[in-house]
């Protein structure tokens, strides 16, 4: 008996050792254009640590001094992305998509564990409209704009065309300013790849002139383990001409482009992309990048340029050689799901850059993400490490999560709107007018101007 117990103990120890692998490195080394990329490693068991969801109670996310956080909508059906309409109304896309069957026994187990970190509420499959008619910061109207959609995610407005990226198609609603309810069922413009839909979110933004749409279509696997036949038209960004109902592949090799935004001024398309899992706590960094037309970004053959992923067979050295390294690493496993460019109205320290919503990790012993960060830009390029903008989603002991950020939208009136798909809340982080005492301010000094209902907004 004693011997048997000892054998079990050795077995347990071996399992424990194989599961931990190397200690995670400081995440600071994983930011920017040249992140530290350690050797790939994986124990016998993948690291799975999911922060346990709890209620916010009387707590709130934490913003920098000079900002006020307000829950402007609660009780939603899994809010993902938001769109600011020209009259200041906010549209919220709600839903849960994907119908990927379990491929291996581990998918059954992983599915159970991952579901512990998400909401138990059913997906709304709808758009909810929020309105603050009197500009007091309280969105007194919360009404369903359209329902019966299929896991809507990406939203864009161009003129009177409201485009919605369902998990299987881009559809169009007619939108008139001030409208609170769609007057007709949507018209389907272009079908999107939706078989399996391992990564189901269809991020979307409109070009600067509003004539084209860009749609992010995530891969159907972590790293090609469903076979490359399942990856046709996946891990790409499509450019769609809604007038002609045509599409073409704009860029490829982007594992899971979960949010897209057009950079003001340059009109350049940017994306946040979630990279692959299960090769260690510090691989592979999720990233923010400008998306080059015709560019190939490596997936699945390589990551961060030409770092070959040995898990893919057959390999493709030619494509690896052609792979582009992204612009800016956000850290491994942070799960960036939202991006929007800032405006000077958010305040001088946040005037030039991009906000990124990080849903938070599952494949890392020490959870990361679970916050909204600001990536400062200079001369149109990321410059410097990310700055925490909205935190407090993860408890100090890192084992309890109150919320998980997804989409971020900048309100030119001086606020950032954050969708939280764990607590089913929309947070509005607004700059306090009192903070902006008159004085010399660099750049356009429009910070703190009261919310004007006519503020124009770019689709995104």
């Amino acid at each position: 008996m004693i011997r048997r117990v000892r054998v079990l103990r050795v077995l347990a120890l071996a399992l424990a050792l194989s599961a931990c692998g190397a200690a995670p490195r400081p995440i600071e080394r994983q930011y920017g254009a040249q992140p530290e990329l350690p050797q790939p490693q994986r124990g016998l068991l993948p690291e799975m640590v999911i922060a346990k969801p709890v209620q916010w109670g009387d707590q709130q996310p934490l913003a920098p001094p000079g900002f006020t956080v307000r829950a402007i909508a609660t009780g939603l059906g899994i809010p993902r992305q938001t769109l600011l309409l020209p009259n200041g109304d906010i549209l919220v896309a709600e839903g849960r998509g994907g119908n990927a069957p379990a491929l291996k026994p581990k998918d059954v187990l992983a599915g159970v564990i991952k579901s512990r970190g998400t909401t138990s509420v059913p997906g709304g499959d709808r758009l909810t409209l929020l309105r603050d008619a009197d500009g007091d910061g309280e969105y007194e109207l919360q009404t369903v704009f359209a329902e019966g959609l299929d896991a809507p995610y990406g939203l864009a407005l161009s003129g009177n065309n409201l485009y919605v990226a369902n998990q299987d198609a881009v559809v169009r609603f007619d939108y008139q300013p001030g409208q609170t309810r769609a007057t007709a069922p949507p018209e389907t413009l272009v079908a999107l790849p939706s078989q399996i839909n391992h990564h189901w979110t269809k991020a979307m933004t409109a070009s600067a002139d509003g004539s084209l749409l860009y749609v992010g279509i995530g891969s159907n696997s972590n790293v090609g383990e469903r076979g490359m036949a399942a990856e046709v038209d996946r891990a790409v960004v499509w450019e769609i001409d809604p007038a002609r109902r045509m599409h073409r592949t704009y860029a490829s090799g982007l594992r899971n482009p979960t949010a897209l935004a057009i950079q003001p001024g340059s009109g350049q398309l940017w994306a946040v992309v979630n990279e692959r899992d299960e090769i260690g706590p510090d691989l592979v960094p999720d990233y923010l990048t400008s998306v080059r037309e015709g560019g190939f970004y490596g997936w699945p053959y390589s990551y961060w340029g030409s770092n070959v992923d040995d898990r893919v067979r057959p390999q493709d050295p030619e494509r690896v050689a052609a792979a582009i390294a992204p612009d800016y690493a956000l850290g491994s496993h942070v799960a960036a799901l939202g991006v929007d460019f800032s405006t000077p109205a958010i305040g001088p320290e946040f005037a030039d850059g991009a906000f990124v919503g990080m849903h938070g990790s599952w494949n890392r012993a020490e959870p990361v993400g679970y916050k909204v960060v600001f990536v400062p830009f200079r001369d149109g390029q990321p410059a410097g490490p990310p700055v925490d903008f909205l935190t407090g989603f993860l408890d100090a002991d890192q084992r309890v999560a109150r919320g998980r950020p997804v989409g971020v939208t900048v309100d030119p009136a001086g606020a950032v709107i954050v969708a939280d798909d764990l607590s089913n809340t929309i947070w509005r982080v607004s700059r306090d007018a009192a903070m902006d005492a008159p004085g010399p301010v660099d750049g356009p000094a429009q910070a703190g101007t009261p919310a004007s209902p006519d503020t124009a907004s770019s689709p995104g």
Partner: protein
Amino acid sequence: MAALVEHRRPPSLHPLHAVLLAGALPLFVGALLADVAYARTYEIQWANFASWLIVGGLLLSAMALVFALGGLFRREGRTTTRVAYAAVLAAAWIAQFFNALMHARDGWAMMPTGLVLSVIGTVLAVAAVWLAYRPVAVGAWT
């Protein structure tokens, strides 16, 4: 007239024990063949087959192992062969358990260790089946 001769012949396996043990073997063999097919073709579906076959083999052989270990507690069951059978079956199960973890890796990351463990686990399973079913002559060494 009844002669009191102790044959020390182990009782034959319980039918359920026999079915579980015999059932596990083709699953492990199938996983090994699927691994070979994946290694030769890079066709990922073979790796998926192997993963499920190993889990099936683990389930059946775990139950057979309960029978095998339980049998050792009975005096008449604790023959050299039966002890060896239980030990080899336990070794096969442990090898296949690690093999299942290895097969949970994505794509080629399960190779070549997954194939090596499939070979070891299958050879051990064949040995366990051999020890369990080999004919034992009455009065012979067991």
